[in-house]
């Protein structure tokens, strides 16, 4: 990492943040609080995956549960039916996810217009119908994963702490990749495609290739998130995996935090996920509706007052201080 000093200079709070995240389980005794943190990290990573294709490259997906579910179901099925290690399942899930992304992308990205968002929405519903009606996939009941010995090889632990570190490492990898992408040619091309596809093409950007690349990266990270989620909850059921709700949360954490912003998914997830998890635990079954109402309200507020998300708000405040709006930086 020869770029590390520059990175630390740009984000001076970052090392401290990493340290706090690393030591968090030592101070948090409450297992539920640790569970919430694990979910925050999971959705930050999954949200970042959505951010790559939809936030940076501007191709909005409303069916990211397809890739998340491909990861969760592939590894779970391989474990249950063939007894394969979830690590092998994770790789298989990634491959299935890449195939799905390539199939969807190679059709939709040849067309101009809103085909991609419609296709993702519809394909997610088709997969939900197939999975929930087919005994091979556990039908509507879902698949219970067998309890194995607590070890890294089995990717199963009886305490939440190893899951936390596993998720922390995965999330850090996803954010590290996105940070690298943002400053590379790929990142510039993604943003150019979002800003103006015709102008990008006139500048030599192969629209099809770069949109497909963005979708594949996004699908890979979503699939890994799916496998980790399945190994964490040890239950995959269609209505919690291939659900519009799952796709929407991936999008919402980014919209709240800041679309096309490196830290947006983490900020959004750190706000939305605790609301959802605590609402569910405090208000039991009824909590489900309340968290969705709060989500809806927050999104309306963001859409009206700060379309760039909370990171946009932060950026603007900093620059009002410098009283030089013209020199607003493009990246955080």
């Amino acid at each position, binding site marked *: 990492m020869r770029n590390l000093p520059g990175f630390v200079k740009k984000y001076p709070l970052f090392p401290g943040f990493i340290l706090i995240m690393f030591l968090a389980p030592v101070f948090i005794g409450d297992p539920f609080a640790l569970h919430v943190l694990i979910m925050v990290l999971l959705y930050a990573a999954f949200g970042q995956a959505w951010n790559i294709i939809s936030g940076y490259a501007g191709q909005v997906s409303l069916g990211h549960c397809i890739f998340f579910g491909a990861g969760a179901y592939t590894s779970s099925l391989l474990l249950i039916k063939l007894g394969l290690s979830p690590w092998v399942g994770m790789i298989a899930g990634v491959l299935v996810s890449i195939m799905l992304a390539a199939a969807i992308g190679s059709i939709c990205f040849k067309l101009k217009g809103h085909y991609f968002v419609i296709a993702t929405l519809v394909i997610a519903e088709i997969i939900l119908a197939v999975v929930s009606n087919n005994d091979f996939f556990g039908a509507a009941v879902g698949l219970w994963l067998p309890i194995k010995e607590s070890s890294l090889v089995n990717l199963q632990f009886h305490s939440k702490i190893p899951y936390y570190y596993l998720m922390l490492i995965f999330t850090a990898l996803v954010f590290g990749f996105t940070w690298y992408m943002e*400053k590379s040619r790929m990142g510039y091309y993604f943003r150019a495609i979002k800003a103006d596809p*015709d102008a990008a*093409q006139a500048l030599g*950007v192969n629209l099809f290739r770069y949109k497909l690349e963005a979708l594949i990266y996004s699908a890979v990270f979503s699939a890994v998130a799916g496998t980790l989620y399945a190994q964490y909850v040890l239950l995959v059921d269609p209505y919690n995996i291939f659900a519009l709700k799952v796709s929407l949360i991936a999008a919402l954490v980014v919209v709240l935090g800041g679309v*096309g912003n490196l830290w947006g998914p983490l900020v959004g997830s750190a706000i939305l996920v605790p609301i959802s998890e605590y609402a569910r635990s405090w208000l039991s079954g009824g909590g489900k509706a309340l968290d969705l109402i709060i989500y809806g309200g927050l999104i309306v507020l963001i859409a009206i007052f700060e379309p760039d998300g909370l990171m946009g708000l932060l950026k603007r405040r900093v620059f009002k201080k410098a009283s030089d709006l*013209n020199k607003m930086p493009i990246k955080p």
Partner: protein
Amino acid sequence: MSILLRIDHVSKNFGGLRALHDVSFEVNEGEIVGLIGPNGAGKTTLFNCISCFCKVSSGRVFLGKNETTGLTPDKIARLGIARTFQIVKPLKDMSVLDNVLVGALIKTSHVGQARRWARELCDFGGLGAKADQLAQKLTIADKKRLEILKALAIRPKLLLLDETMAGLNPSERQEAVEFVKKINKEMKITILMIEHVMDIIMPLSSHVVVLDYGVKIAEGPPQVIAHDEKVIKAYLGERYHAKVASS
């Protein structure tokens, strides 16, 4: 002088509408060629056909010895044809420098190197002081300038300028004319330009092509074009004719 661009019997139909009909001409290396004609004459359609944003219905286009008909716009850019858009297309939410940088990345995947080239270009085009501003916050004159800089960033052999001086006031226009001359002389880039303002195209170009209703009605040096009866009737109007005649 060798031929850089050859338009060979190009026609383009939009359904029943004949936008271009059997247009042929050549652009020599190092020239500035003007493309004029009344509104709806097919000038921008011809640009779209050259840059492959639309497919020709018949005919062929050559860059040097290579046929470019039927390629995609990004491939054309890689072969060395850059274009600007009549309605400017700055990359929103990106700085002026980053706009130019995206184009510069065509020749290198190294962002630092591309940024240096983009910075040089911004200075060359007089936008150096505004390099860190958001592209959409520029004035219209600067946006038109950025449109040209973006196109130059891909280091083209041929630059297609689509009304880059429309909507500018006389002093801005004079600067733009000097800038086009500078691109042609210092960067040695061949230019094919669409322009409505006769006072610009006539002194700037060495060679003028006139389109009317999709058909090439005249071609030649500007002095000859200005006195061509067909052109005057179709496009220049009696007043300009009188002005040229009296001068």
